[in-house]
C-alpha cells in the first residue's frame, strides 16, 4: 500500500486545521458539554449555584404526559412536513427536468424560498393566514368561522406544517433536479419507446435511480423538521393555542428561556440530540449501504 505524505512537518497540519477545530470545539462541543452538565444538575437561573441530581431531570420529563404528547406531535410534524415538501419538490423537479428550455430560470424561481429566513417567512405567513384579515382568512366571509388558527389547534398546526414544507421545497428541488439530470437521457427515452407514460417512467425508472438522493433528502428533511421549526412557531403561534403547536424544540426554548428551567430544557435537548444522532446514524450506516448506486 502506498502512503502519500505531503507534509514532513508534524505540526503544520495541526496548525492548518486548528481554526476549524477551535470553531467546532467552541461552538459545538462546549455548549453540548454544558447542556450535558446542566441536564444532570438543577441549575439556578441567575447562576448562584447548582446541585447534582443524577437522572432526576430525565425522569421528570419522561413522567410528564405533556412531554410525551410533544414528542408524538414532533414525530407527526416531521413526517408530514417531509412528505409534503419532498412530494412537491419531486413533482416540480420532474416537470422542469422534462422541459427542454428554461431549466435555469425554473431553478432560480423554485429555489428562492429556501433563502428566506424562517422567522421572516413566519411573519409573512402569519398575515396570509390571519383569520380576520388574511388572504386565507377571507374564506371566512363565505363560510364564517371555518378557518381560525388562533383558536383551533388543528388549523394552527396545519398552518405551521404548510409553511415549513414550503420553506424546504427549494432545497429538495435542487437536489432532485440535479439527480434527475444525472440520469442518462437514453434510459428515459428507451422507456418511452417501450410505451411507458411519463408518470410510469418517473416511478419505475427514474425514482429507483435517484434512490440515494431520495433517502439522503428524507433523513435531512426529518432532522430539519425536528430542529428548524422554532423560528416559524415563535413568530406564528408561540406554541399555542393550548400547546397545539408545541413541538420538542419549541418546548426546549420555552422551558429554558421563558420558564427559566435551564436544567429541564437541557435534559430535553439531550433527548432531542440523541434522536437526531440516531437519524444521522441511520443515514450513514443503513441508507448509504443499502441503497444501491447505479
Amino acid at each position, binding site marked *: 500500500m502506498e502512503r502519500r505524505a505531503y507534509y514532513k512537518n508534524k505540526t503544520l497540519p495541526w496548525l492548518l486545521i486548528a481554526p476549524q477545530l477551535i470553531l467546532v470545539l467552541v461552538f459545538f462541543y462546549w455548549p453540548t458539554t454544558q447542556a450535558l452538565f446542566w441536564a444532570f444538575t438543577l441549575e439556578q437561573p*441567575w447562576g448562584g449555584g447548582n446541585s447534582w441530581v443524577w437522572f432526576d431531570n430525565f425522569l421528570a420529563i419522561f413522567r410528564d404526559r405533556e412531554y410525551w404528547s410533544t414528542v408524538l406531535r414532533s414525530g407527526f410534524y416531521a413526517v408530514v412536513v417531509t412528505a409534503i415538501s419532498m412530494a412537491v419538490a419531486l413533482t416540480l423537479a420532474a416537470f422542469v427536468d422534462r422541459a427542454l428550455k428554461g431549466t435555469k430560470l425554473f431553478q432560480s424561481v423554485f429555489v428562492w424560498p429556501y433563502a428566506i429566513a424562517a422567522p421572516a417567512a413566519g411573519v409573512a405567513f402569519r398575515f396570509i393566514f390571519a383569520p380576520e384579515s388574511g388572504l386565507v382568512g377571507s374564506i371566512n366571509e363565505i363560510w364564517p368561522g371555518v378557518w381560525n388558527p388562533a383558536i383551533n389547534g388543528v388549523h394552527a398546526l396545519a398552518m405551521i406544517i404548510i409553511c415549513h414544507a414550503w420553506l424546504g421545497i427549494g432545497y429538495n428541488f435542487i437536489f432532485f433536479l440535479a439527480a434527475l439530470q444525472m440520469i442518462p437521457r437514453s434510459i428515459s427515452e428507451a422507456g418511452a419507446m417501450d410505451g411507458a407514460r411519463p408518470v410510469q417512467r418517473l416511478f419505475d425508472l427514474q425514482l429507483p435511480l435517484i434512490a440515494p438522493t431520495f433517502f439522503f433528502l428524507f433523513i435531512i428533511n426529518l432532522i430539519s423538521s425536528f430542529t428548524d421549526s422554532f423560528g416559524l412557531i415563535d413568530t406564528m403561534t408561540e406554541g399555542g393555542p393550548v400547546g397545539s403547536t408545541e413541538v420538542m424544540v419549541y418546548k426546549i426554548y420555552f422551558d429554558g428561556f421563558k420558564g*427559566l428551567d435551564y436544567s429541564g430544557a437541557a435534559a430535553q435537548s439531550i433527548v432531542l440530540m440523541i434522536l437526531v444522532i440516531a437519524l444521522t446514524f441511520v443515514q450513514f450506516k443503513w441508507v448509504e449501504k443499502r441503497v444501491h448506486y447505479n
Partner: protein
Amino acid sequence: MNRTTLLTAASTIAVLALATPAMAQTKFEFWYGLSGDLSDRIQDMCKDFNASQADYEIVCVSQDNYDANLQNTIAAYRANKQPTITQIFDAGTLDLMLSKAYVPVKTVMADAGLDVDFGDYFAGIASYYSTSTGELLSMPFNSSTAMIYYNTDALAKVGFEGIPSTWTEVEDVARKMKAAGYECPVAFDPAGVWQWYEQFSAIHNQPIATKGNGFGGLDAEMAASQGLFVDQLTWIKAMYDEGLFVHKSKDVGQNDLDAFAAGDCQIFSGSVAGHGTVTAKAIEGLNWQVAMLPMREGVERTNSLVGGASLWTLQGKTEEEYKGAAAFYAFISTPKQAEWWSTVTGYIPVTNSGFEAMKANGFYNEAPYAGRELAIESLTATPPTENTRGIRLGNYASIRAEMVKTIQDVLFNNADPKQALTDFDAKGNDILRRFEATYAGASLL
C-alpha cells in the same frame, strides 16, 4: 532600535493612552422591558436625568418586553456584562430575591449618601418588593393595577345608568349590547391572566396559592381550583359561548385595547397603565370611562394587587456606577418627576405624597385623567390580607403560561373548568416543587 525597545515603547504609549484623564462622567446602563409609547417616555426621563447633572450618564436600553428583559439580563449577568439597573416585572420578583444577584436599594442609597423617603411609598407597593422583615430590595418604579374600561355611549344606548359594578351587571349590559347590534360587547384576551385571574382572586380575597400566596415559604401549593375562580371561569365560558365575550388578542390580529379604542368592542379589562394609550388611540368621538374591576354578587371587595415592575440594582459594578444608580433613583423619586411620569403614562403615583399632591392640584378632576385615581382606591380598598399582599411564587412566569393554556382549553376546546383548573394546580405545583428543589435550603428572606 531593536524589537524589544519597540515593544516597550508601544506598550508605554498604550498605557499612557489608557491613563489619560477618564471622562468626567460615569456611564452606566439601565435595561427596561417597555416598548412603544412607554419606551419613549423612559427615553425622555433618561435625557432629563442626564441634563440635570454633570457626573453621570445613564444609557437606557429597551429590551422590548418584560420577558425578554429578564432573559437578557440573566444572560448578561451570567456573562458578567450586566447593566447596573434592570427593570423586572412582578412575576420575576421571587427569582431575583433568591438570586443574590442584586444590591438592596437601601444599601445603594446609603452608600451614595443619598436619601429617599421609603416610608412615603404605598404600603402595598413597598411590601411587594420587601423581605418579610420589611427590607425594601428594589426601587418601586412603574406600578399599576387592573381596571375595566367601558364605552359610556354603548352603556347609555342600552339604558344603563352609571357604571356596572358587578359581573352580573356586566353580563346584563353585554347581552343588551349584543341585542342592540354591537358585535363585540366585551373584548377578552385569554393571555390576560393578570386581570382575569390574579386580580379577580385578590379583590375577592381568594388565595392564588397557599401560605399567603407563597409569602410563607417555598412549599406553597396552587389553589386555583378551590375557590371562586372556578365559578368565574365557568361564567366566562358561558359568556364566550353566547358571543358576549369576544376573543381579542394579537393571535387574531387585534388586541383587546385596540379593539376598544377603535370602538369595535365596548368593554375590556386591562392595566390602568393603558389609560394613556387608550387616550392616544381612541377614535374621534369615543366616550369612555375606567372603573374598578367588578365584583361577583354578594362578595365584599378587598384590595387589588400591585402590578408593573421595579428597578433592581445588580451586583458586580463599580462604586461609581452605584453612585450613578443612586442619583438616578433620587431623581425619579422627586415629586416633580414622579408626577410627570404618572401623567404621561397612566402608571399610578407610587408615594402617598405624590398622590396627595396630584389630587390637590386637581389632576384627577378632568378628562383625560379622570378615573385614574380609582386605581389607587382599588389598591388601597382594604389593608392587605394574606391573599392580597402580592404573589411570591417561584418561576411564576411559567405558571402564568400554564394558566393561559388552561383558559384557552376551556374556551376553545370545551374543557371542564373545574377539571382544567385542577390540572392547572397540579402543573403549577410541579413547577413550584422544581423551583423549591433548585433553591434547596434557601429560605424566604
